[in-house]
């Protein structure tokens, strides 16, 4: 034992003082490009629902999300309490049933995802960091498609949970549920690609919102009208080809043909095999084309 116990005690008390330690350098890991891309993806996905942004930015996405889930919850409640033997709506048809709500969501969220970066000139900051232009585009595209997938798939999950609670046929429901998720995925990819390509054209958020609503509703209304006329004229075959001209009818035809749903086409007509293949190709081409447009858009943007 030391004869003087007090000096060590004083010294240990002195270490409790808060020091101004000045600048500290960073020697830890730098996780590089792939990590930066993931960070941008997460930030954009959160931003789509207003997380990490001001309270004002959360209002619209959250309200729309509630509106999207509410009908599913009601249907489930009805099915469970009244003991229906099948759900009032197909898993795959749910998205087209609430298409206007989804269109508003994309119109609000796609400009939020890309126009803000353009308008407030944040894009050059991203490109002064390890990521490349292609990383930026892929992060934004995955973020918006994931946001849309959450938006369209959560109601499908609610329906499925309700169906199981109501003790409907498990195999049937699971098959329908899987088809519903696939439809939601295809829908999200197509709408995210088109929505982003349109939104990235302008740094003005208002223009972006208007342009996206126009792109998603005008062709759809026009095509539906033309399809009705074609049916009146007796050329029912033309309705399939007309359906290629709008994203809404493309998805409708696809889910009717491949995912066991029913279409909103005149007479509930299903696509023929050949038409189905063409629909698939056109959807793939639309996604790829929009993605290439985005890449082109950001080739020039920068410092």
């Amino acid at each position: 034992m030391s004869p003087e116990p007090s000096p060590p005690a004083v010294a240990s008390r002195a270490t409790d003082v808060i020091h101004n330690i000045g600048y500290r350098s960073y020697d830890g890991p730098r996780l590089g490009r792939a990590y930066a891309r993931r960070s941008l993806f997460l930030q954009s996905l959160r931003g789509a629902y207003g997380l990490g942004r001001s309270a004002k930015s959360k209002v619209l996405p959250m309200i729309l999300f509630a509106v999207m889930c509410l009908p599913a919850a009601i249907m489930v409640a009805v099915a469970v309490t009244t003991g229906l033997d099948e759900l009032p709506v197909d898993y795959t048809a749910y998205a087209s049933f609430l298409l206007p709500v989804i269109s508003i969501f994309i119109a609000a969220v796609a400009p939020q995802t890309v126009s803000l970066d353009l308008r407030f000139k944040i894009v050059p900051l991203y490109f002064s960091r390890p990521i490349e232009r292609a990383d930026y585009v892929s992060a934004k595209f995955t973020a918006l498609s994931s946001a849309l997938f959450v938006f369209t798939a959560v109601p499908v999950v609610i329906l499925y949970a309700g169906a199981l609670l109501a003790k409907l046929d498990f195999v049937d429901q699971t098959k329908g549920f899987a088809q519903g998720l696939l439809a939601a995925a295809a829908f999200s990819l197509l709408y995210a690609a088109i929505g982003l390509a349109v939104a990235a054209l302008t740094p003005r958020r208002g223009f972006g919102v208007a342009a996206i609503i126009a792109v998603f509703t005008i062709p759809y209304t026009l095509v539906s009208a033309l399809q009705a006329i074609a049916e009146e004229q007796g050329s029912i075959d033309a309705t399939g080809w007309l359906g290629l001209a709008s994203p809404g009818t493309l998805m409708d035809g696809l889910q009717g043909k491949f995912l066991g749903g029913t279409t909103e086409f005149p007479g509930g007509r299903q696509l023929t095999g050949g038409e189905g293949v063409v629909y698939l190709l056109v959807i793939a081409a639309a996604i790829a084309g929009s993605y290439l447009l985005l890449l082109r858009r950001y080739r020039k943007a920068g410092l």
Partner: protein
Amino acid sequence: MDPLPPGDVRRYTNALAFLPVTVIATQSLTMRYPRVTALDRLTVDITPGVTGLVGANGAGKSTLIKILLGLSPATEGTASVLGMDVSRDGGAIRERVGYMPEHDCLPPDVSATEFVVHMARMSGLPPTAARERTADTLRHVGLYEERYRAMGGYSTGMKQRVKLAQALVHDPRLVLLDEPTNGLDPVGRDDMLDLIRRVYTDFGISVLVTSHLLGELERTCDHVVVIDGGKLLRASTTADFTQDAALLAVEVTDTDTHPDGTAALRTALTSAGLTLQAPTEAGAPGSGHLLLVDVGAAGGADAGADAVHDTVRDAVADLGLGLIRMEHRRHHISEVFQDDTPAPQLELAGTRPQEGGSDDVA
């Protein structure tokens, strides 16, 4: 001076941090656009420290920054940053270099903390480190409680601090600051310049700062590089530069014997062999009574400068004029590029381009 292979350089950069290696080296760097040549065979070596890059608008400053970040390939020539080649190692360079753009780049509905954390992660910092370094860096640039508020309500000075913080948050070895004092009032400008000086002296991060005002760079920078029309006009230490660029402003009274004292003194000084600036913009108030005597042109050395002071003093005394003021003036860089006085300035700049360049900068 030949750069090591990039992998080795990155491994040894910490050990080399305080050795006099170049942080930026360009070799006949040329950038041609269809209509203009933005950089014309620019060869310059920049050592650790604070370096000012001066040039008028359109001189090629931003183009140079873009190339240094590895974002646009040069038409000809090579450049390396921290020993890494800009054409091959752009990603690795951007991981260890910070960039503060000239324009606004802050989303208004996000807080400074949220924004800087995101930018730290975009530079590759893991989440915990990103948060810690954000808190540290914002404190170092002087942003305290307000960092939790949305940035839309910030003053210009606070915005500039956040912009600087996002460039420093990943502890880069070099930061490129593009016109960081733009839009600031005189006090904000001084604060920002002090902060930039501290980035090197306290944080050990080398700085390349662009400006079109030579005056503010001489206080902050160890070296100054002047480019014009994409060409290197001058690269030397700040001390050398301001020595040569120094002017003596002299204002005298009129007397009964010399009703136009300014003109009398001008004649006297010219005959004493001093170089006087041509009377400048007639519009400027009081400019008719101000004589600008070139101190550097007399020889550049301290002895020369003293001789100039003595000559002016003697001439004023001989004429019996009242001396209102005699003060040092620095060239405003825009004077260097003025159309009506290009020849003497270019000569001045061309007097010692290589000696100056090789002892001070290499």
